[in-house]
């Protein structure tokens, strides 16, 4: 259908440029939910160097081409569908390790590096990147940052924003710029890292990032607590008032627990990662506390422990029903931490088949439910519950029909004009991920 644009072929190797028609069905499928129904982009462009990427963006800027930005496309379904996309640009081939400064606990990589690659580099040094986001096998670090996607480990290590020390990026006009640095402490200049974290690629294309790494804890142990709602809530408060230092502290819904074959009721899951003696001592204290409150308790160690947390993440990431392949929704939400359990309950009332994980420390959670259960009304009810607990609800993945009915982001604050002015400054022509994010 399309002849290769001569200008693009001049700056890119042939393998970096694929017309839509020649794209693998798999890529086409990943891209489709990010684009308004019925539209198709011209190319998928996969530059191999930062300079190539910058040149492509310069051309896009000059020619008013709209670009959809991705890494491996694992989360292209998140956000609104974009309008009039000309080119899809993937940073997946920018995947070089720049520097693993093990002694400094920092890592610099190109943005297309997958989390899995990063962990493989770090593991021999007994280090890891303290993130357990969605789609950990395919997700690139650039995409993880752009979606601010952190999982259970946030309880001890914080969100993506707390781990990102420096960025280099291609701006909407094709210029290369950077902010932050490669050191763990740095207050020079504005903290643009924060704007790019969770900015959904609307301010620029990340090319290189520096992250804080952590030593892998010597030992892990997970305690799963189940029982009466009131007793569980008491337990959760007792933990918040104690000096126990779990690395994860999640409320997991019965449906999610069932899918991991570790029970069939709502559980409070505490993961300890520390020196062996402390992991043992802390789990023992939890056991005694749990006993006093009459809670059921099981302790996981070794492979089953690791497997359990991988399962939790996998189940939340399962895009279609394992039973009949039917469609699902994925939402991210937040509430005040003390409202976490009540939120799990409400979700259960709205749809008993929904899998839910809420971090008890931050009140941030994810739910995966059947699309049939989560219509506009159910989403609306849950959203107003979250907002009444000072939080929010964002619909990440959902059938196009549902997304069209709703405001998927659910931003309820008064700072939208400020966000729009920032977008206007960074990308005045609105060529980067147009229409995908809160700012339009």
């Amino acid at each position, binding site marked *: 259908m399309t002849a290769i644009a001569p200008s693009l072929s001049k700056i890119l190797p042939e393998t970096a440029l694929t017309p839509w028609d020649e794209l693998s069905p798999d890529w086409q499928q990943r891209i489709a939910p990010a684009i308004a129904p019925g539209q198709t982009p011209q190319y998928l462009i996969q530059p191999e160097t930062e300079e190539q990427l910058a040149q492509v963006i310069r051309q896009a800027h000059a020619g008013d081409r709209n670009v959809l930005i991705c890494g491996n496309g694992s989360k292209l379904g998140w956000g609104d569908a974009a309008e009039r996309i000309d080119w899809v640009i993937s940073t997946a081939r920018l995947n070089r390790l720049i520097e693993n400064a093990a002694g400094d606990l920092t890592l610099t990589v190109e943005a297309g590096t997958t989390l899995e690659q990063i962990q493989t580099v770090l593991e021999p040094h007994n280090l890891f990147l303290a993130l357990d986001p969605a789609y950990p096998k395919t997700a690139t670090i650039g995409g993880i940052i752009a979606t601010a996607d952190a999982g259970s480990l946030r309880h001890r290590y*914080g969100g993506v924003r707390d781990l990102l020390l420096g960025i280099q990026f291609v701006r909407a006009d094709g210029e290369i710029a950077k902010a932050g640095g490669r050191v763990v402490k740095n207050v*020079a200049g504005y903290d643009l890292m924060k704007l790019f*974290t969770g900015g959904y690629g609307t301010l620029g294309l990340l090319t290189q990032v520096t992250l804080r790494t952590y030593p892998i804890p010597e030992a892990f142990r997970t305690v799963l607590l189940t029982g009466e709602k009131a007793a569980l809530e008491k337990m959760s408060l007792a933990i918040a008032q104690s*000096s126990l230092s779990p690395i994860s502290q999640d409320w997991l819904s019965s449906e999610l627990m069932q899918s991991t074959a570790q029970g069939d009721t709502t559980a409070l899951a505490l993961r300890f990662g520390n020196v062996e003696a402390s992991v043992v001592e802390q789990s023992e204290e939890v056991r005694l506390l749990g006993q006093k409150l009459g809670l059921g308790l099981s302790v996981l160690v070794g492979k089953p422990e690791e497997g359990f947390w991988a399962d939790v993440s996998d189940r939340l990431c399962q895009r279609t029903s394992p039973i009949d392949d039917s469609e699902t929704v994925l939402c991210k939400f937040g*509430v005040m931490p003390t409202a976490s359990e009540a939120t799990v309950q409400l979700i259960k009332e709205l749809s008993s088949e929904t899998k839910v994980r809420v971090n008890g420390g931050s*009140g941030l959670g994810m739910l995966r439910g059947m699309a049939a259960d989560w219509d506009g009304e159910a989403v609306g009810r849950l959203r107003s519950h979250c907002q009444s607990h000072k939080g929010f609800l964002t619909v990440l993945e959902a059938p196009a029909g549902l997304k069209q009915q709703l405001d998927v982001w659910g931003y309820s604050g008064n700072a939208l004009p400020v966000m729009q002015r920032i977008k206007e*400054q960074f990308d005045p022509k609105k060529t980067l991920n147009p229409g995908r994010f809160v*700012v339009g």
Partner: protein
Amino acid sequence: MVVAVNPAANQAQEFDWDAIARAFEQALGKDRVVRRREELLVYECDGLTSYRQRPNLAVLPRTTGEVSTAIKLCNQWNVPFVARGSGTGLSGGALPTENSVLIVTARMKQILDVDLDNHRVTVQPGVINSWVTQAVSGAGFYYSPDPSSQIICSVGGNVAENSGGVHCMKYGVTTNHVLGLKMVLPDGSIVDVGGSVQEMPGYDLTGIFVGSEGTLGIATEITLRILKSADTIRVLLADFETVEAAGAAVTGIVGAGVIPAAMEMMDNMSINAVEDVAKTDCYPRDAAAILLVELDGRESEVSVNCDRVAQICKEHGARNVTSASDPQERATLWKGRKAAFAAMGQLSPDYYVQDGVIPRTQLPWVLEEIANLGKQHGYYVANVFHAGDGNLHPLILYDNAVPGALEKVEALGGDILKLCVKAGGSISGEHGIGADKRCYMPQMFSEADLETMQQVRSAINPKGLANPTKIFPTPKTCGEAANAAKSLNIKPIDGVEQF
């Protein structure tokens, strides 16, 4: 050179200060406005006394609404404004600019909300850092970022500078503990960013406001995360025959998977200064360096890690390792470290503190290079620093009475910053850029980098009224030689240690 967006400040404009003052008095009440020259004197500098400029007017609002009214008036009269907390900043951030109104948060001192169950506290910006911990310590909580000025600096100032402290190695700096802000923007409008719950959809505006040094508006309510106090705290003191050995021990400790709450190093010159002056009898005078390591957490982890750290220090050649758990004994081990800056003040008529960051593995050669630079410039440089996160505070000893000394010291300080950048680090770890270091920004950032940061400023502060001329280099501020007759002393504050 990138030119700062600064239309207001660049205009050679005549201001009718009498009329402006009357307008402020009318809108806010006389008791909120300071206009007498003598009374304005206290506001002419912050902790970096080398820069002085008297504001034309100072206002002391009590509420968000009053801050908004004040800023709207500034817009009406097209006068720049500068926010000021406690004025302890060390980079001239709160330094009034020519023809400006100073908005002082000193009367905004209310703790608005304490929610222990959710680990959140909301305060007005004039609340003093240590009050937050005082408000929650009874229940076993504390506010973690602990600049050594914490008994006097304001939370608003901490937010604006993204301040650090001794304990930020394990727990992070201010930005990691701020959940949300109420901001009065440079046009006087009020917005709420972030909140009690993190990761609201949209850009992380909280993240961009923290550390923006008052150039994007004034924070009038701040929601902070508090932490549970540790059960056990233990401090280890180790002394080494070479700086390399101490540096290698730091790397060894981190490499063994231990993240101490704090890890501080002092070199031979600082040790001797402290022993001469404070006579703590803690630190051996012949040691090339001492290392202080504080571990906290549950007893079960602290005891294991403490043994490990001691072992690692010995493996790296530590001659002695002492440890203490008892609060009094811990204080003794810390005493010399805390007395270090004061000791310098007694050793030398004047001293200048630099603030730079390097990757911590580069410590040994950077320290050697700093000593060489000192020799080249003809000054002693003592080193006291946060070794855990590579945040150096080289202290240059000099005598301001010697003509020209100051310029030389400034040049040496600048060379040290360039060295930090060369080592892969930063020109500021915690004191900020302000008026002091803006001319060094191009060392670290390209024109495109600075231009991109300026886009944020243009978006939020388009008229350039909020704290103009700070952070970014301008031809006016960096083009010519620094103004003469400066003294680089830091104002001593009773009861406040310097780190």
